[in-house]
């Protein structure tokens, strides 16, 4: 038995690795010689592990979009100017970094999901210039978006694509082809169903329009973080190469 009185606070500090200086060695010796003391310290260490474990899962939760978006709205947003370069960067990057991670550089995002139907033709009907449409209660690509999603490959947008740019193509975990797109004031992700492109996410993107207006290559449209996070949530493997995109287009994006 030790003759020294050890306070609870000292035992706690020892268990937490926080007992400083000259008190540490005597306590270590006392613990070695006193089973009861050792038990108290071990109980404190166990409590520490137990409390830490109770909150550990929070780290694995997806960070809500409203929080990450606050930090992605950088004053001078970078844009995806070269898809090939982005692919190389993605291939070279360390595992664990995500699309959303490099998307932190992407355009400023006006928060909030844009309801698809508001983005359709202003004349009201789902005409040939509708970006988004509705089918069976689901938001799907309208004629204009579907045209771009069906035909565009390797970010080779032309004037005929009517302001829609397709950037990344990938195979989702559910086996569908999915493609990111951006248009005047919106960016999003669509995945190919049997009959149509089902729109998974749309985000208002302020950068998309100004880029086109400035005469930049349409491939330069920036991808908002929310879209990249939607990619992250679905992607299986890596994005398609241009050659793979050509092959997929020949099969009408069916697998």
């Amino acid at each position: 038995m030790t003759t020294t009185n050890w306070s609870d606070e000292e035992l706690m500090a020892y268990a937490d690795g926080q007992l400083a200086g000259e008190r540490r060695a005597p306590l270590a010796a006392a613990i070695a010689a006193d089973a009861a003391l050792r038990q108290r310290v071990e109980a404190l260490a166990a409590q520490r592990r137990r409390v830490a474990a109770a909150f550990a899962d929070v780290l694995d939760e997806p960070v809500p979009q409203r929080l990450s978006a606050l930090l992605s709205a950088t004053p001078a947003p970078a844009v995806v100017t070269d898809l090939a370069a982005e692919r190389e960067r993605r291939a070279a990057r360390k595992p664990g970094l995500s699309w959303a991670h490099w998307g932190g550089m992407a355009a400023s995002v006006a928060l909030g999901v844009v309801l698809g139907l508001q983005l359709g033709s202003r004349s009201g009907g789902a005409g040939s210039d509708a970006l988004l449409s509705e089918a069976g209660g689901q938001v799907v690509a309208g004629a204009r978006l579907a045209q771009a999603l069906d035909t565009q490959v390797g970010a080779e947008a032309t004037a005929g694509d009517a302001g829609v740019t397709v950037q990344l193509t990938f195979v989702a975990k559910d086996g569908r082809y999915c493609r990111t797109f951006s248009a005047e004031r919106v960016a999003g992700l669509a995945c190919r169903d049997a009959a149509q492109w089902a729109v998974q996410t749309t985000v208002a993107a302020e950068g998309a329009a100004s880029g086109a207006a400035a005469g930049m290559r349409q491939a330069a449209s920036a991808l908002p973080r929310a879209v990249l996070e939607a990619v992250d949530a679905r992607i299986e493997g890596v994005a398609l190469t241009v050659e793979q995109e050509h092959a997929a287009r020949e099969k009408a994006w069916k697998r």
Partner: protein
Amino acid sequence: MSMADSLPSVRTQIAALLPRLRRFGRTLAHTREDADDLVQMALEKALTRTDQWTPGTRLDSWMFRIMQTTWIDELRARERRGQTFVPEEEGEHVGITPNDAQMDAMAVRKAVSRLGDDQRAVVGLVLVEGLAYQEAAEVLGIPVGTLTSRLARAREALQAMLGGTTP
């Protein structure tokens, strides 16, 4: 891109801390929604004053401090409004039958939520976020002796609520 512009890099560093900020929020606040609201308020504050963070010092401690003061302000505002807390129903977040570890985690989180506001902060900083006593004391703006006694009382209270056995 200019490397001289430090603002994006602070943003990037804060973004990397988000999971931990959310976790610290969960020890302070009683519900997940409150915790994320708290993180959001703290982020908005932090982004207006990134120039006040000294590069080379701990950014996590800086953010934790902003969260803590924001939370205290929020508690006072709620007190003025006469608003009471809605106790978190832990079970609602578990869709399937929880295993032993999940059951224990729920019991521990519930016990932490029953601690006083001051005690939850020290538990969060030291036991969950792993800050040294001195670092935690600086975050809270209190002497390290005060932190130590506060932590000891919090751990006694947890011990009384939870007992000593771990499944």
